[in-house]
């Protein structure tokens, strides 16, 4: 029973840490499926976390915080879009620039506005997202096995958590069952085909970048307004890059994205849980090793276990009409 409880606790925290990964990876999916590589997920998330935390602290409303987060993230997305779609710049350079701008600007603005060393004020009450209890959670809690699974693992999460998991099937549906999805996938594979079919490549790609911005914004809001109560500098801590790894790992497919993010979330949860604990035989595992695991796993698995991850064919290439 003790092991079972531990497992439930670890899984619960897996879900908690997976949410920003899922949101960011889905954000990357919309962008990269349309042929715009986005290494700036990290920066957009960070800027959104700050905007959300700041707006919620000032207005006292979580909803306004969320809107501010999305707005800022979409704006940064549009900057990336302008650089890489309209100006046909290098998408990696643009993404890196966004990451650095976000890293610096959040701290400077935070210090200028709130004077708490780059933090935003602690959020409380309506300014922060609260958890939702599923119906009958309390009543079922005492039933062995099923009870904890329902009331501890499935119930008691933030609304944004449920939203993130619902976005998985939704994204699949959008991608494979709607006109928008068909065109989005096409523009990432062969923009020439889209152009000759009378569809604007530029407008398609901008829409993809906006979708990416919205999802990154939600991811950022979750970090500063749900998972914690306020923005702390550099709080994304590489989650944008892990999401990118998960996306490659998932071969740019929505359902795979969920599993990849849950796996990476699980490793993260384990690393927190195992801090200082001794494992039988192995002894104490350095926490740095656990933190490096997602990256190591990506490299190892990509090197042959999951087969070749083929990116969208037109990914990273600005569209120029050929002569």
């Amino acid at each position, binding site marked *: 029973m003790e092991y079972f409880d531990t497992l439930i606790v670890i899984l619960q925290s897996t879900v908690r840490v997976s949410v920003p990964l899922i949101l960011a990876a889905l954000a990357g999916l919309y962008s990269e499926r349309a042929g715009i590589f986005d290494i700036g997920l990290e920066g957009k998330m960070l800027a959104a976390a700050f905007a959300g935390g700041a707006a919620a602290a000032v207005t006292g409303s979580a909803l306004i915080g969320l809107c501010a987060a999305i707005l800022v993230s979409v704006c940064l997305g549009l900057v990336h879009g302008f650089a890489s779609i309209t100006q046909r710049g290098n998408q990696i350079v643009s993404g890196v620039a966004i990451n650095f701008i976000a890293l610096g600007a959040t701290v400077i603005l935070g210090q200028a506005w709130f004077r708490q060393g780059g933090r935003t004020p602690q959020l409380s009450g309506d300014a922060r997202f609260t958890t939702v209890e599923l119906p009958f959670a309390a009543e079922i809690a005492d039933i062995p096995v099923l009870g904890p699974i329902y009331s501890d693992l499935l119930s008691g999460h933030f609304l944004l958590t449920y939203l993130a998991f619902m976005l998985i099937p939704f994204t699949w549906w959008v991608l494979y*069952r709607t006109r928008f999805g068909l065109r989005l996938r*096409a523009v990432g594979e062969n923009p020439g085909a889209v152009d000759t079919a*009378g569809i604007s490549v530029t407008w398609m790609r901008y829409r993809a970048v906006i979708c990416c911005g919205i999802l990154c914004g939600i991811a950022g809001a979750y970090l500063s307004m749900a998972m914690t109560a306020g923005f702390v500098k550099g709080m994304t801590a590489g989650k944008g890059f892990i999401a990118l790894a998960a996306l490659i790992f998932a071969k740019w497919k929505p359902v795979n994205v969920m599993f990849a993010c849950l796996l990476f979330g699980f490793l993260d949860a384990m690393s927190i849980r195992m801090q200082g604990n001794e494992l039988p035989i192995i002894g104490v595992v350095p926490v740095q090793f656990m933190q490096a695991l997602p990256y190591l796993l990506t490299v190892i698995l990509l090197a042959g276990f999951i087969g070749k991850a083929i990116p969208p064919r037109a990914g990273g290439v600005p569209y120029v009409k050929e002569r």
Partner: protein
Amino acid sequence: MNDIAIELKGIDKKFGLVHANKNINMRVRKGTIHGIIGENGAGKSTLMSILYGFYQAGAGDIFVDGRKTVIKDPNAAIAAGIGMVHQHFMLVENFTVLENIMLGAEESQVLNAGITKARDELRRLEQEYELEVDPDAVIEELPVGLQQRVEILKALYRGAEILILDEPTGVLTPAEADHLFRILEQLKSQGKTILLITHKLREIMAVTDEVSVMRRGEMVATRTTAETSVEELAELMVGRHVLLQVDKGPATPGDVLLSVENLSVRDGRGVAMVKNVSFDVRAGEIVGIAGVAGNGQSELLQAISGIRRAVSGKVLLQGEPIHVTGTADPSELRHRGLAHVPEDRQHMGLVLKFDESENSILGYHDDPKYLNGMFLNIDAIRKDATDKIEKYDIRPPNPRLKTANFSGGNQQKIVLAREMERDPAVLVIGQPTRGVDVGAIEFIHKRIIEMRDAGKAVLLVSVELDEIRSLSDRVLVMFDGRIVGERAPDAGEGELGLLMAGVEDSKEAAQ
């Protein structure tokens, strides 16, 4: 009733300094197949892209069915009933046929309803025009002939009355090309108007009703096909008299200089592309390898020239073995007298960002005559390049010009000059005239024959059957990695075409 489907008046287009179309006037009659010919860079594709709304003309008007029509983007072209089959197919390779056909014409936000309708419509088109394809097949798994059919269906699905085909036969086998022409005849009989862009004169003569000739951005003539000849059209295209038939005397084969025995090669994905191939090339003969692109010719060339490691087999160069399954490398082979003109000159034959003079010594840059101690002797290199430019008539004659700025034909001459001037014993040459205009083709063919007459062994690989037939002394046909037959160059085109399609001698032609 107006019987002019399309009329162009004073179409003019500039790309920077390049004047691609100069005051073009043209009329295409309804229900005909109208050919447009011209050399590469004559402006045919630009003109058609303007008609399809891909580019906007700097000046001039387009009339469709007698009405002045502004075509500002492909949407407007589609709305005006114009469809286009591009030279490089505009298909999404990992989509199904159905998805490709629906793209841009989905009918509704959610796909379901449109899918059913598209399926029905596709079935109707297939029956009406005999264009069968499996709607659920993935494009990249289809042969090119079928991919092209999908492109045609795409245009018809959008209700095209006027169909533009840009160099449609470049990637097809002769049998597939014949099938395409039958489809075009069928479309014509249903009242569609077809514009066929090509640089192959034979095709023009075979299927068109009228033909317009373009040269250097200008429309130089329009003829009724029945009243013109290949010779006249060639002359109009190039602007001077051209020899279409290569003059060559009988071959006088000598010793075997290149001998290939049981060679097998795999491609990058590990698929066997060359399967147990054996043949000899003697001094003073040209051996041509015919075949549809992708049947192992590329891998064969790469193995012989030391670029790709073979799985098994032996290659003898002037009687001495080449270590093709192991350490053979192109530089060693060059020094042993094997010159290689690669199939893809832009990727393997040249560094486009280099000066002409640098490219003209590439691969031989360690020759002491180009060196000054450990440094390059720039003066010697430029002098050498200038000599080659003169001898091979490379234009513009400037050894310091960036190679990317030369036309396809002149780039090919740079490679040929580099390889031929080393006086190799064996010349291995892939697609010598791909993307090269008629005038330069004549020159390149003459050079190749001169090499033969000087007692070199020449191995020629080309997907252009005409080229193989007019240059070779012996023709080997490659299909699916094997040499499926040897023929004399004067063997019938039909016979060679069947071999290229993998039909064994005894069997009947399969459709």
